[in-house]
């Protein structure tokens, strides 16, 4: 029988903040990570759990001040079927569709994926590539944390003990393109071997890419950007020479590890190849 730490299920955000301020609690959203972790096989189970599932103000998808704003408790299933996501950031729906299968997509949340801070978190490279902002709340204040500062170390986030992740804001700059690729053992239910999020801005046609963001998961202790490879792509057009240089730079830049899911060599080769193919698709050659 798994561990059963005490749990409270507040119905309002102020109640949740008060509980967090009084004692450390592990927040529980859709449970798809936490219920596995409390088996005790993956380290110490949490002492107390704060079930935030009933805080409906943390749900929903809207466009506001030129950003796509997604409540932390929004499930992958809701993201997949959202007409707003389909219109403004379809790559996010693509990413949500790669996670688990129906059972996981119906419970797992975008906020849970971010807060769980797995280096293999499927949504995270996309959030990083899109310059996401994380809105954190506590009894006293709200603050915004940029994606680049959100995962400071292996399985750590910028969320303080008395804070909750409320929502994620994805800026929607004009003429930005976003692409997402996940490589796993099978299409469903696979933990990723490599995940890639790529974003850039460009005018119509074969014009140079600007503000290039390349983010990767499962190749380091946290989700990372690849600044050297971004520099190769910045100001370039998606031709074959650019793709060759970017792919070679990426293979040299990332330092993945061997683990149960894959090898360092495979991850380096496949990340580099997937990037090459993404650029080729854009260049149309």
């Amino acid at each position, binding site marked *: 029988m798994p561990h059963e730490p005490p749990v409270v299920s507040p119905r309002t955000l102020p109640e949740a903040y008060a509980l967090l301020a009084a004692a450390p609690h592990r927040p529980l959203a859709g449970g*798809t990570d936490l219920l596995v972790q409390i088996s005790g096989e993956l380290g110490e189970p949490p002492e107390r759990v704060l079930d935030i599932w009933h805080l409906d103000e943390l749900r929903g998808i809207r466009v506001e001040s030129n950003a796509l704003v997604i409540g932390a408790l929004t499930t992958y299933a809701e993201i997949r079927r959202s007409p707003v996501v389909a219109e403004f950031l379809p790559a996010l729906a693509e990413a949500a569709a790669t996670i688990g*299968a129906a059972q996981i997509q119906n419970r797992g949340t975008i906020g849970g994926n971010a807060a769980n801070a797995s280096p293999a978190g499927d949504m995270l490279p996309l959030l990083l590539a899109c310059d996401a902002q994380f809105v954190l709340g506590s009894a006293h204040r709200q603050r915004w944390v940029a994606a680049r500062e959100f995962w400071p170390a292996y399985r750590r986030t910028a969320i303080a003990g008395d804070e909750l992740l409320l929502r994620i804001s994805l800026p929607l700059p004009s003429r930005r393109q976003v692409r997402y690729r996940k490589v796993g053992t099978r299409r469903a239910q696979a933990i990723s071997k490599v995940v890639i999020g790529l974003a850039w801005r460009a005018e119509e046609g074969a014009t140079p890419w600007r503000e290039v963001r390349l983010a990767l998961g499962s190749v380091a202790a946290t989700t990372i950007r690849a600044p050297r490879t971004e520099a190769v792509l910045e100001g370039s057009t998606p031709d074959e020479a650019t793709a060759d240089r970017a792919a070679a730079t990426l293979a040299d830049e990332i330092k993945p590890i061997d683990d149960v899911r894959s090898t360092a060599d495979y991850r380096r080769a496949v990340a580099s190849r997937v990037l090459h193919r993404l650029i080729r698709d854009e260049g149309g050659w």
Partner: protein
Amino acid sequence: MSYRFVVNGEPVAVEVPGMRRLLDVLREELHLTGTKEGCGEGECGACSVLLDGVVVDSCLVPICQVDGTVVQTVEGLARDAPLNDLQSAFLETGGAQCGICTPGMLMAAEAYLVAGSPISDGAIREAIAGNLCRCTGYTKIVEAIALAGERRRRDASV
């Protein structure tokens, strides 16, 4: 703590710790042992049930999140007959072998059929992608779901 919800049309109340898994409450408290435990970590889908109409792994849902909801298990599929049309289709095509995956497979398939999406091989396979079967090779399961789906559509259009 006391938690109240509806299972297969019947209101129930249980006194259990809030982090008790829905799976354990169904099997140990309510004696609904049709729902099986496979991996216990959301990989295999054997414990699939419907929670407010959508398919979930009951090993990943703590009972504190089930309070006030409507749960359907494999025991709730057939109402006035021993089997419903989907269960009969599994028997007809040979979609059930050892039986461990079958209750979860049925619930994932039921969620798919009730959602009313177009019936196609690819869509059926995606709908049951979270349910592992080590006997059938899936083909007969996919045939069963397609058969039940076609019959429901035909009956609805009569």
